[in-house]
């Protein structure tokens, strides 16, 4: 924390403790404010722009029947003034009620409970994959700086962040599913496949919990291709970031000091370089994870993966306000939570921050 001067500093001092608990409390409070801000923005923007959710969600004959329209508006609270709608929404939110989706006609919370785990599953696999691949490539690239492997990896990672995901997904699907037949089809399970008993909503995990290894294999094979397509971008991001942070740390005096001790290079990298680099890499991985959730829209669309991305797309084009707000809030919460987690990790891992008084 940077030192501050004068009265303002005094106030800050009174408001804030230095310990770990006040830190967490403070962060949690701001996080809640942020989430409310997110709802406010999505609410405002969707209200500001033209468009009529009633027309979007009623058939043509129903729409010309005023009784049905009125009933519909009443059901979804659209007959209320806008500020009242928002206040009501917030009030309901406190009770865990995210409203009813206009397009699916069921509580948004149920929709999210169904779609979020599906996206979480591919995003988690993608991040997991890209974390290790990106870390590995980044390290190789940094230590072979400007040599051939580095050049190749740099082009590769730049290509990764430059691929239009929707196009990659299409191409990958066509090749691996249709031409080569390696990938199973679209969706999370084969047609009529029985999802495992719902515990986490992640089919792979649930299948393992249920001890159903066949379903696990099936679920895993279905998620692999979309996850890999998602991972391409994340690998690019993480490789580049890893390379840059390692190069930066390699320039530090303490690395030179470690080399001057005659330590083998792997030890220098692992102990002296990777540890501080990991801190920032984890930050980026955390944020990448949150952005994968949002970025899954285009990929899910191609793989008809029944996840948050598709839900978001349908909510957006259907002007399904509760749906849009629900998705925004989930993604924002994950983002904020990841950031919080990263900050906590920072404080735990880095003694410099712990010691600084």
């Amino acid at each position, binding site marked *: 924390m940077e030192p501050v001067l004068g009265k303002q500093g005094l106030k800050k001092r009174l408001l*804030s403790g230095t310990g770990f608990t006040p830190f967490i409390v403070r962060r949690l409070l701001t996080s809640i404010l942020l989430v409310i801000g997110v709802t406010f923005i999505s609410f405002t923007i969707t209200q500001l722009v033209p468009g009529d959710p009633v027309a979007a969600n009623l058939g043509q004959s129903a729409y010309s029947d005023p009784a049905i329209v009125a009933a519909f508006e009443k059901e979804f609270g659209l007959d209320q003034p806008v500020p009242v709608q928002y206040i009501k929404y917030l009030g309901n939110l406190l009770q865990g009620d995210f409203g009813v989706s206009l397009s699916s006609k069921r509580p948004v919370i149920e929709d999210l409970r169904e779609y979020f785990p599906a996206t979480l599953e591919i995003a988690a696999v993608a991040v997991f994959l890209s974390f290790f691949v990106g870390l590995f490539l980044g390290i190789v690239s940094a230590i072979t700086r400007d040599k051939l492997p580095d050049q190749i990896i740099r082009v590769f990672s730049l290509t990764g962040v430059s691929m239009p995901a929707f196009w990659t997904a299409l191409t990958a699907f066509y090749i691996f599913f249709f031409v080569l037949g390696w990938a199973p089809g679209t969706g999370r399970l084969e047609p009529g496949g029985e999802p495992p008993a719902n515990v986490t909503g992640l089919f792979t995990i649930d299948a393992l919990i249920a001890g159903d290894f066949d379903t696990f294999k099936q679920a895993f094979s279905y998620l692999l291709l979309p996850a890999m397509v998602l991972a391409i971008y994340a690998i690019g991001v993480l490789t580049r970031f890893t390379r840059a942070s390692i190069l930066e740390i390699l320039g530090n005096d303490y690395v030179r000091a470690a080399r001057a001790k005659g330590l083998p290079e792997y030890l220098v990298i692992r102990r002296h370089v990777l540890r501080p680099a990991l801190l920032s890499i984890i930050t980026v991985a955390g944020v990448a994870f949150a952005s994968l959730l949002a970025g899954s829209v285009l990929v899910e669309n191609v793989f008809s993966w029944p996840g948050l991305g598709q839900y978001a797309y349908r909510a957006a084009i259907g002007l399904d306000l509760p749906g849009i707000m629900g998705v925004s809030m989930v993604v924002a919460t994950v983002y904020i939570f990841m950031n919080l987690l990263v900050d906590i990790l920072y404080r735990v891992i880095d003694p410099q921050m712990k010691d600084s008084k």
Partner: protein
Amino acid sequence: MKEIIKLSDVVVDYYRNGNTVRAVAGVDLTLNSGEILGLVGESGCGKSTLGKAIVGILQPSQGEITFDGQVVKKLTRGQRPSHFRNLQMIFQDPYGSLNPRRKIGVQIADGLLVAGMSKKNALAKAEDLLEKVGLPRAAISRFPHQFSGGQRQRISIARALAASPTAIIADEPISALDTSSQAQVANLLVKLVEEFKMGMIFVSHDLSIVRRISDRVAVMYLGKIVEIGTVDQIWNNPSHPYTKALISAIPHADGNSFMPKDLPGDVPNPLSPPTGCRFHPRCQLAKPDCRISEPRLVRLSDNRDVACVLQNAGTSPNSISLD
């Protein structure tokens, strides 16, 4: 001689994570026109803080600083009142004190433009100033990275001169320079002080340089001035054990293998300064009393003040021996 800067009981605090760091803990000081006052002390003792408070970058939480009879106000977001523009500062880092992305000419001219001069005149004046600090006039359209540290420090000085200062706080202006540039810049400062009859506070941790160019020296320890006097008095006749230690720690480049004496321990954390005399934990002559009562700066003779119990008790300054 005119008193140009006067400090009375100045205290400067930093607030950090809910703690108060008292970096300057009650300083009385005066600076006269045409004199160079050296301010020395170990790292972290509050020299820069004091300097910044004098020009108004920091707000003292107690006490008063006057410049030319007017109380110095903290810099605000608006324009600095014009009469305070005669009070300038030169910074230690020759790299951070110039904007790397602007030509040096406009940086020097800024001070004149702000004062209302036309752009053309200001640039012409900037060339004059460059010449004054010993740089070619053509340098006006170059960028800082095209200059060495010493030259940059000259540019900073030219920039300060643009405001026709009557007093300059120079915060370690030569510490970051090579030996040969050090001498050049120090000479330049001395020359300018004489030429313009300015007063200058020359902050340094290097007593030997201070000794060459200053008229008086103030020795600072943990936020307090522990001794003030003329250069000769301080160097030849240090009255405070700390001053003495400081002097005997300077190595001599005479080829006689003189081994300087170290002062054990570090400057204490200003967060929790020692009780009584702030120097007592590192003082070989400390008496039980030193732990309790804080010595005040007392006048020993003309222009000579010291804050040490041993002196207060009337012990003759010369009787202090650390060996």
